[in-house]
């Protein structure tokens, strides 16, 4: 957006997010939900929509929904009612999707998050349960099969749809909202939150209006954003398109657009279900769901601490800076790791620095999540314990960490086997210093002539001579002692 345009118009954004629930079986049948199976191998008469089959609701799907609703301060409807949403598409074999309409599982509540250093609150309209549809493969080039191919494994995987009020005013804020929702579902253990794998999907309702106006403009719906970044980019793109239309005297028409990631544009959706005449009616195969107060109490009592509370506690309890706390709590696995290690090592800032640099670098580069990291808390406690007690230097610790990742060996064993223990014995260190000073008389003269920059040169030589094992703090002290004051008269012994 150019700044001139941005000052005249204000975007109004609401998000509809679909979260794929982490149940092991589907919402209305016992088929597995695992990703990546042989196509159509995880199907049965219920999710294939065969005549005579009847849905039986998965208790955990309801419970996961309740977890999110309560955690976001919403209200659980009892009873809540399933409804049929009718439309024709080959990946929907029943001809209708079982969803919720009049009485969703939950209403109200809000997502709170940090944005540009401020606490933001986006209100929710509703949270409801529904089943996912299958996956269609359309020919993309002329030489491919001209027909549509369908995999129904995803049919009946439970989804939670989270619909926000149009409270968002900035595309970056939309991405920040999504990130917080991702943290929330991950902390609650109800969804992986992985947008790239489609476990979290986002549709955006976007309109623009003249600044200061209280009426909403005509809105469009943008679909198909597969990453947090594309949520932001697609909305920016759509805002620019709408402002362009309005500025040239045209009107925005209500329509559904698809984000094209490779072309970085929004394009009108092809005629899938252009009609939103879904002819909803109550699902006759399922009774209204009554949620007993006991059930609500149980879930409420088990609501875990979410990321924002946890970040605040890390600042309070471990004394780490706010920035560290927000980085450490971004992924639940990382927050757990920090907490486990920091409790034992009793130098929270050392642990925080290590996790934010070394561990997160590896998690981002080589392992998609902390769960797959071959270094568990006890190993990291041992390693950082050795750093803290100065048995190994910070630099050696990084090398040991790398070996731990490769071999899975315990840090103590690696240090013992490779003789990496830090040299802190003053006699040995003094010997090293004297050797280096004797070998470099010119630099000694320079230092004594007042050029203190050569200290770095000596430290480099010392670390090399000790193979990185010399205690840097002691080496520095002994070095200065042996050199005497810069510009002074003292001679080396």
């Amino acid at each position, binding site marked *: 957006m150019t700044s001139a345009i941005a000052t005249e118009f204000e975007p109004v954004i609401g998000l509809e997010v679909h979260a794929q629930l982490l*149940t*092991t*079986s589907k919402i209305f*049948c*016992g*088929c*597995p939900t695992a990703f990546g199976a*042989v*196509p*159509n*191998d*995880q*199907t*049965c*008469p219920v999710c*294939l929509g065969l005549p005579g089959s009847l849905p*039986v*609701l*998965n*208790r*955990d*799907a*309801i419970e996961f929904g309740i977890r999110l609703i309560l955690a976001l301060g919403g209200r659980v409807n009892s*009873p809540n009612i399933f409804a049929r949403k*009718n*439309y*024709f*598409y*080959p990946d929907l074999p029943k*001809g209708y999707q079982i969803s919720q309409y009049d009485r969703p599982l939950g209403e109200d509540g809000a997502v709170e998050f940090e944005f540009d250093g401020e606490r933001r609150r986006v209100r929710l309209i509703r949270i409801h349960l529904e089943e996912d549809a299958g996956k269609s*493969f*359309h*020919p993309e080039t002329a030489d491919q*099969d*001209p*027909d*549509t*191919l*369908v*995999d*129904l494994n995803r049919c009946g995987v439970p989804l939670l749809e989270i619909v926000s009020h149009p409270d968002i005013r900035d595309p970056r804020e939309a991405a920040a909202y999504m990130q917080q929702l991702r943290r929330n579902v991950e902390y609650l253990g109800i969804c992986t939150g992985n947008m790239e794998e489609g476990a979290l999907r986002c549709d955006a309702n976007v309109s623009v209006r003249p600044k200061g106006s209280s009426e909403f403009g005509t809105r469009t719906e943008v679909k198909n954003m597969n990453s947090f970044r594309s949520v932001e980019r697609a909305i920016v793109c759509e805002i620019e398109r709408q402002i362009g239309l309005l500025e040239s005297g045209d009107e925005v028409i209500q329509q559904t657009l698809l984000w094209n990631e490779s072309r970085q544009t929004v394009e009108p959706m*092809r*005629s*899938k279900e252009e*009609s939103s*005449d879904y*002819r909803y009616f*109550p699902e*006759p195969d*399922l*009774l*209204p*769901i*009554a949620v007993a107060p006991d059930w609500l109490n149980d879930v409420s009592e088990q609501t875990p601490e979410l990321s924002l509370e946890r970040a605040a506690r890390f600042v309070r309890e471990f004394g780490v800076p706010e920035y560290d706390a927000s980085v450490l709590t971004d992924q639940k696995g990382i927050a757990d790791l920090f907490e486990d290690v920091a409790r034992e090592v009793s130098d929270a800032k050392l642990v925080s620095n290590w996790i934010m640099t070394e561990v997160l670098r590896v998690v981002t580069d080589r392992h998609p999540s902390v769960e797959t990291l071959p270094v568990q808390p006890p190993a990291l406690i041992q390693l950082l314990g050795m750093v803290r007690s100065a048995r190994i230097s910070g630099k050696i610790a990084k090398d040991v960490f790398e070996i731990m990742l490769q071999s899975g060996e315990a840090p103590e064993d690696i240090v013992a086997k490779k003789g990496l223990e830090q040299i802190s014995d003053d006699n040995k260190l003094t010997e090293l210093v004297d050797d280096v000073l004797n070998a470099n008389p010119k630099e000694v003269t320079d230092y004594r002539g007042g050029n203190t920059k050569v200290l770095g040169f000596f430290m480099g030589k010392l670390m090399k001579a000790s193979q990185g094992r010399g205690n840097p703090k002691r080496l520095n002290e002994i070095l200065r002692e042996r050199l005497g004051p810069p510009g002074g008269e003292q001679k080396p012994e």
Partner: protein
Amino acid sequence: MSITHDEVIHTATLARLRLTDAELDRFSRELARITEYMDQLKEAVEQLGDDDVPAVRTDSRMTLRPDHIEQWFDSSVVLRAAPDTKGHLFRVPKVIG
């Protein structure tokens, strides 16, 4: 209650059905008869009073299923029942574009 041709065409479009003129006439008549029957039921409900005939029994508790996997059969059985397949996928006429 009568059902117009336009209403039948709209419904057919949603269901991706193409109807001949003869079928349009026939479905208009048949759908009208179905909705007339619904009207009849509505009258019956009004005569009985709403409370006596709940659409669903609100006093019954729905049985919920524990989250356990129960696999039915392998995909070859499912695929054999389909009119057309390609590998492990169902093959259907192209519907968009």
